[in-house]
């Protein structure tokens, strides 16, 4: 046995080397750094105000209570918020994928007329933003303010996602498209029957990107929507949190007083409630996710 091998053997404990143990410990510490705050959020959402005041860094409350969740769900607005978000997601996600994939496909083809100019226009919007007032004026002139469509349309196209997808499409062999063309397929047929079936990783990734953006979106809804019953989940949660911590000096002081509760508990409960659906959704796309980001990010 060589000296090198002997040295390696000396640091081996069972099947693992010393380096494995060090890495194991480092990874556990890193995992705890992520998990502890998460656990703390859940613990606070289940704690009473007094318990939280006594020990804000708790990992689990001594006397768990569902009061914060009860207060959140007793408020019918939460379900309305979920429903509105689902509506935005159900319409917005396919629309986003359609708009993004069609443009990405067009711009990924070498012979597409005006490709460079159109790509420049797209890129320009990433660097220079028109601002919220022009956007509002556009929506107003389309008579879309106060409608869920304003939120859907504003979030339905991302230049960044389009570039990711375009790069992925550019990596697909041109010969595939050419042979499809020889078989009489048009560009739409090529996109839907040849390109998209081969683009599962990037489609999964972009689906996740758009899905998370629609789920977590609040700004567009805040700007464009006017009715309480139209607000999506994130805006509803924000309203509930703001109300629960309203300073009782405000106008309707007695009413505000009756609404005030353990605001931190409600805040943490709302964080958890809004996180759960995304947490359920993520593992289904995870296997495609890392691959999709990498392949889309590297121009081949």
């Amino acid at each position, binding site marked *: 046995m060589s000296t090198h091998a002997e040295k390696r053997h000396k640091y081996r404990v069972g099947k693992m080397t010393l380096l494995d143990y060090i890495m194991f410990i480092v990874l556990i510490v890193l995992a705890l750094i992520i998990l502890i705050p998460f656990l703390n959020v859940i613990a606070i959402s289940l704690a009473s105000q*007094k318990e939280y005041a006594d020990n804000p860094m708790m990992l689990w409350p001594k006397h768990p209570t569902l009061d914060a969740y009860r207060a959140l769900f007793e408020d*019918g607005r939460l379900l309305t918020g979920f429903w509105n978000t689902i509506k935005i997601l159900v319409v917005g996600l396919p629309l986003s994928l359609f708009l993004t994939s069609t443009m990405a496909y067009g711009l990924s083809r070498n012979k597409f007329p005006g490709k460079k100019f159109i790509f420049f226009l797209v890129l320009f919007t990433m660097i220079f933003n028109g601002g919220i007032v022009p956007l509002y004026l556009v929506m107003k002139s389309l008579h879309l303010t106060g409608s869920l469509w304003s939120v859907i349309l504003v979030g339905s196209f991302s230049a960044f996602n389009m570039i990711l997808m375009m790069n992925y499409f550019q990596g697909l062999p041109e010969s595939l498209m050419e042979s499809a063309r020889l078989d009489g397929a048009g560009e739409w047929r090529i996109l839907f029957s040849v390109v998209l079936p081969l683009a599962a990783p990037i489609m999964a990734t972009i689906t996740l990107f758009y899905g998370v953006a629609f789920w977590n979106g609040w700004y567009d809804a805040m700007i464009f929507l006017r009715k309480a019953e139209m607000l999506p989940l994130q805006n509803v949660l*924000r309203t509930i949190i703001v109300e629960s911590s309203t300073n*009782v000096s405000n106008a309707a002081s007695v009413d505000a*007083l009756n609404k005030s509760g353990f605001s931190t508990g409600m805040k943490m409960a709302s964080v958890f409630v809004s996180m759960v659906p995304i947490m359920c959704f993520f593992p289904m796309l995870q296997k495609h996710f890392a691959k999709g980001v990498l392949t889309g990010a590297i121009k081949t």
Partner: protein
Amino acid sequence: MNTKKLFKPLLAVALSAVMLTVTACGKDTASSGGNEKDADGNYKDKLKISVAQTTEVKDGVLDNEFHKYWMDKFNVEWDYNYVQWDSWPEKLRLWINSGDLPDVASWNYVHGDFMNYVDQGLLYKFPDDWKERWPNVAAAYKLTGLGDKLEELTGGTYILPKPVYYQNKPADPLVNQIGVIAIRKDWAKAVGFELKDAYTTSELIHYAELVKEKDPGKLGSKLVPISYTADDALTNIIMANSEHSRVESAFYKGEDGKFHWGPADPETLTGLKLMQKAYKEGLLNPEFYTWKNNEGSDNFRVKGVAAMMSLGGLASYRQDMDKNMQKNLGVSSDDLVHTAIVLGDDGKYRNLEQPNFWSALIFSPNISKEKFERIMDIIDYSTTKEGQMLLNMGFEGKDWKYDENKEPVSLLPEGTTLEDKYPARFEGLYILGDDFSIVNPAIKKEYRDRAVELFKEKAKLGSEGGKLATYDWDVQLYDSKAKSQASFDYQNEYANLILQGGDLEANWKKWVQSKQSLVQPVLDELNSKFAK
């Protein structure tokens, strides 16, 4: 041409167009009509009025009896627009600038923006005779002070500043509600500390020292003698000794007719020295300057480990404290809490004179004459005693009645509030709820009486030898880049100063010097415009 090839893209375009048009082309059902009344005095024509407020009106809420009463009485149909608290300024700014303002909206008044909006014609100008036509609104408007000042600047009425107090103003002059503290009266008795209505800062520090020494609650290291956040310390230690130490009154006109910067006054140094003493003696928590929101008061009302906290002067605060102590400590706060105001170490009372307005009502520049008049009729009624009782107590005989002492008493079942029965009563467009809170039986009478007592005491001490920072309209309505740049986070600046090592006075002088590049331009501007 290959029609199959064309079919899919055309379908996609057509679908998109249909989606847009179907949703976009909402019918504009806004009605037009006059304000003629029939023989019974009812409005003949129904008007659809869009209103934007921060009260959340959920789906179906407008069907309840309360809202129907208002809609029937004034023959209106509401198009209610909800503005969330946290997006209020941004949303209104967008609506105003894009010409999309609802007929009437509640706006968090910003003077610089107001002047720009008036210049650009973005706000409705009231008719010249509006004060004669709606006298109740005009009376409440007069009390705000701001309305008249703005008329001098713009030559007309463009907004209705909302009065905080109207019929139930607790004291004159009106002093800011801040500067009321709560102390544990059981501990005060245990350590032999006298209960009074007003204490000097040093007396309160002495009380905290006694509690720390004798520990009447047997709390050991958990005891927090003075549970103040940095902002509380600014209010109850520094402002109590220097009325111009806060952002609201930092720039003021002195007796010499020139403008000064309050944080550079020697009185501010006196306050800082007392604050540092409290910190060094361990009376303030070692990390008090990191506390946010309720962390200071929670030690008192949730954990029961503090001897003193900053409460504020509203009766609703006192009721909230009672609710918290009952819920978390299982005790009645009436047995444990004493409220008082804080004096400077020279025995003088200091606070801020409070303007009697908060936010404002604005009207769309495109509103029709009929709609404007109908809204003003609604506001005028809402400011009458009958309107106020309806808004705050519900229907007489059904939701409330007068008792034998002619005091209103609620007829709602125990534990039910008017908000439960009639949610989102946004029709009280004009006068703020603070006014009615002075007489509202939903707040315990003892708390209301004590709040008014302390308001009166503040007004008396403030005007009889005290030092109230007057609300200087010139400074408040002056807007410039230099002024916005010279706005500091004073509570944190002061906390930093008392935490620094070395001599406090030397550090304070150095700090004052370091701010001069931003402060002096403001002083120069104010002196050139308003100094004698």
